């Protein structure tokens, strides 16, 4: 027994060794860029490879050193006057006035959330800090909050801003900021919690989904935690968090066996101190960036590292991206691209613009990842669940639209389902549009274009950073050889074909 424990301890200690420098090359650099960011063109991979492992990881992790001048949407601020007007009409307006205002508000919010989707996708596709955006996307899936209930684009932006600001920060601090932010207060009903009727929604989910996982707390812990959390409230006119002492239950609570006059802040502290907390969040981050947990000892090692570094994500991520395990054959090219990764990664690798927001949104939604509208508080399942027969065919067909710069076969439903009228209007507007598309001269040199094997090798390196299977290479070679005079359109179709493979769906 003691022997096995010792053996296990030795195993934990042998984990997270640094990747040996002779394994650092273009392929490992590409893997790092694909996972810690959204991939990039050959030049970006080459540049990263040139920095060495430690330099490359620092470049991605210490992103604060790179200025990101992206301005916020101009409406991303509280609007006390508009809120006041809303309240007044709701109190004293006629039914007709109320209805009209409700419609206007809804339209305004829909317009803003669409803009926000485009704003974020653009940051992912073109921004200078890919890891920060990749972590923001992780947190969005983790604290999965939907506009469908929150119904306020400013609140969704605020939450997104926290995810970005604290992307690689301190765990309890992030929990507190997210918990006390309007979007979460509305999403999990904390804003409605009162001393007399504590609402248990946030108390339950914060433990089950955000920090500990099922089995690491009791129903009694939930009830008591809900009491502790009372007082966390929403100031609707100023559109911000407020602590309301009158709503707070100041009595004694017992949570995880500890008794005291806990409030919400104290409860969050208690959670993070629970032994399963570090294992839970580090396993989820490992899964997001790497994939399967290779061994229980790896999770032990990740959790230990996280705790030793004061529950900070930055040193943890640095160790993760430098570890031998992150580059193991079980991990590399074994992750299904999420729809966002697929779209944004394609734009980055092919050096083309994202389609207009409405189209980008339609695409990601069609493929199962509607930003700011995850299916529920558990977020997206990810992994192989991204792939169904129809999402796969859709990816293959959308690839053609992306490389050609045409509007993909979207339907009114891809623009929100309910407002079919709006969807149809959007479709009509789109038919007049042409979108980015790939410029062939950007991605192939004139010399490469002269020789079909060179075209194939270049595209393969750009899209996969590895070789396709032999029969696939032969198929592509035959496709190119059959063209007597190679046009740009032919090259784009070749790219589309290479994207219409199982291989392109993984990274």
């Amino acid at each position, binding site marked *: 027994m003691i022997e096995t424990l010792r053996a296990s301890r030795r195993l934990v200690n042998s984990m997270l060794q640094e990747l040996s420098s002779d394994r650092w090359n273009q392929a490992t650099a590409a893997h790092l860029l694909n996972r810690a960011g959204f991939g990039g063109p050959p030049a970006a991979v080459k540049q990263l490879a040139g920095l060495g492992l430690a330099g490359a990881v620092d470049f991605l992790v210490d992103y604060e050193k790179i200025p990101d001048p992206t301005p916020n949407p101009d409406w991303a601020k509280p609007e006390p006057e508009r809120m006041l007007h809303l309240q007044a009409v709701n109190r004293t307006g006629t*039914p007709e006035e109320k*209805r009209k205002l409700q419609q206007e508000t809804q339209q305004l919010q829909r317009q803003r959330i669409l803009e926000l989707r485009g704003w974020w996708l653009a940051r992912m596709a073109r921004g200078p800090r890919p890891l920060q955006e990749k972590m923001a996307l992780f947190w969005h899936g983790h604290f999965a909050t*939907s506009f*469908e*209930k929150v119904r306020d684009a400013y609140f969704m932006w605020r939450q997104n801003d926290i995810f970005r600001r604290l992307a690689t920060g301190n765990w309890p601090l992030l929990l507190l900021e997210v918990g006390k932010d309007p979007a979460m207060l509305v999403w999990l009903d904390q804003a409605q919690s009162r001393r007399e009727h504590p609402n*248990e*929604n946030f108390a*339950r*989910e914060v433990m089950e*989904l955000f920090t500990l996982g099922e089995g690491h707390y009791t129903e009694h812990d939930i009830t008591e935690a809900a009491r502790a959390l009372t007082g966390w409230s929403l100031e609707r006119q100023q559109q911000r968090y407020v602590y309301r002492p009158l709503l707070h239950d100041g009595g004694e609570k017992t949570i995880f066996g500890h008794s005291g006059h806990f409030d919400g802040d104290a409860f969050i502290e208690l959670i993070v101190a629970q032994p399963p907390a570090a294992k839970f969040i580090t396993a989820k981050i490992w899964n997001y960036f790497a994939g*399967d947990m290779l061994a229980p000892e790896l999770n032990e090692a990740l959790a230990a590292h996280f705790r030793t570094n004061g529950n900070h994500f930055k040193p943890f991520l640095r160790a993760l991206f430098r570890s031998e395990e992150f580059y193991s054959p079980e991990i590399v*090219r*074994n*992750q*299904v691209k999420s729809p966002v990764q697929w779209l944004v990664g394609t734009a980055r690798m092919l050096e083309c613009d994202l389609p207009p927001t409405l189209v980008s949104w339609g695409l990601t*939604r*069609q493929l*199962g990842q509607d930003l700011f509208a995850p*299916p*529920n*508080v*558990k977020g997206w*399942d990810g*992994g*192989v*669940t991204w*792939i*169904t*027969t*129809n999402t*796969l*065919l859709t990816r*293959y*067909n959308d690839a*053609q639209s992306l490389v050609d710069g045409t509007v993909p*076969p979207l*339907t009114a*439903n*891809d623009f929100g*389902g*309910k407002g*079919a009228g709006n969807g149809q209007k959007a479709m009509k507007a789109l038919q007049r549009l042409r979108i980015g598309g790939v410029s062939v001269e950007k991605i192939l040199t004139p010399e490469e274009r002269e020789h079909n094997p060179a075209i194939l090798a270049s595209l393969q390196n750009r899209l996969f950073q590895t070789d396709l*299977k032999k*029969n*696939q290479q032969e*198929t*592509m070679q*035959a*496709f190119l050889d*059959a063209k007597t005079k190679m046009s740009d359109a032919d090259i784009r*179709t070749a790219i*589309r*074909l*290479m994207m*219409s*493979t*199982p*291989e392109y*769906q*993984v990274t």
Partner: protein
Amino acid sequence: MKNEITLQTRREFLRRTVLGSALTWTVPAFLADTFSALQAQAAASATQTVTGKDATILVVLQMAGGNDGLNTVVPYANDFYHRARPKLGLKAGDILKVSDDVGLHGALKGFKELYDNGQLSVIQGVGYPNPNRSHFRSTEIWQTASDSERIEKYGWLGRYFDNACAGAEPTVGVTIGSQLPEAFFAAKPRGICFNNPQNYRFMANGSATEESYKKLNELEMSGPGLTPDDGSGGMLNSGGSIAQLLAGMPMTGGRAIDFIARTALDAQHSSEEIRGVAARVQNQAEYPASPLAGSLKLVAKLIGGGLPTRVYYISQGGYDTHTNQIPTQQRLLQDLGDSVKAFVTDLTAQGNLSRVLVMTFSEFGRRVAENANGGTDHGAAAPMFMISQRVNAGLLGHYPSLAPQDLFQGDVKYNVDFRSVYAGVLENWLKTKSLPILGQQFPPLAVV
């Protein structure tokens, strides 16, 4: 039995692509034996399995937006009803009587005919404890069959596929629409969705592109996914594993690429199948011209074409009638009744009606009292409709009380948990145990 039905086309595929050529030198011997056995079985039962004539089919029809149950199945003789709805209340002359107390909305002529033929049942007062009045959340509760306080990751139909349809074709679940409903979410994603069969395909700008696409997506049976000593080997040795492997199920510890490669083949195969059926089978009834009727026409074709589908999912939107409810609901219910009636006529002509059960649901009913805008606000319990040749016809359950003291925050209380209806559908219609799917034992309602 279910494997016989669902495996057929996969066997056909195997014969064509694997047994045809590569088998002799790429697949280990023990596997080759199994393939041969499958092939023999398939040949023996080919006709029966192609049409799947004995399998029951469920068609789920979502009335999205929260249909006003009170003005659908109308308690026209009830004083509380008329007091709560001075403007919207329907009188005896506006409805189609089915009993001394209850009548169907006058627009539901199609449903009334089905009712009179003994092909329609009305389950009264269906809901769940602690009703949620958010469209989003209440729809989710219906789709995942969860308790009001609990979030479930997977849908009830997804769990049905996971539990009872291992090894099934991807077409075991078909949604007509552009988004897979949450009800289909599953640990092992299955089920396909499309608006128009013409879009459910690889769109190629030329035959060279089409040919190349097929070659690029050929399954390489010698790949790592089939070597018995890697992660997938254990699965190959367990019961039913060939079926699972070929059904494109994710393999724990397997490569993501293998799963995607199998899904790519499934996509190619089901795309050809569906487009073929849609082009070949003709509708045999006059349908109205509406999106709902369009969906039902397509479902009828797919049923007629013998797809191995167990669940079809379609929806009709627009029921969120906060303002000016009368004309909107009139139009929607008319469409509903006429479309479903045409669908039943079509299936009758096909000889398939006895295999099909249509079930309607809406995320909630509406408030008993009308609002000031000629509409109604979000409520709770409401009726469901079941349509089939073998349905337990008539009014099931009893009408919820409308007496003010019996309401909860202005809403009628449920007297049938919707999960009892699901349990009845699963056990009595789809012939599978409901407990592993619903997670709790609900008394199955005798729907058929």
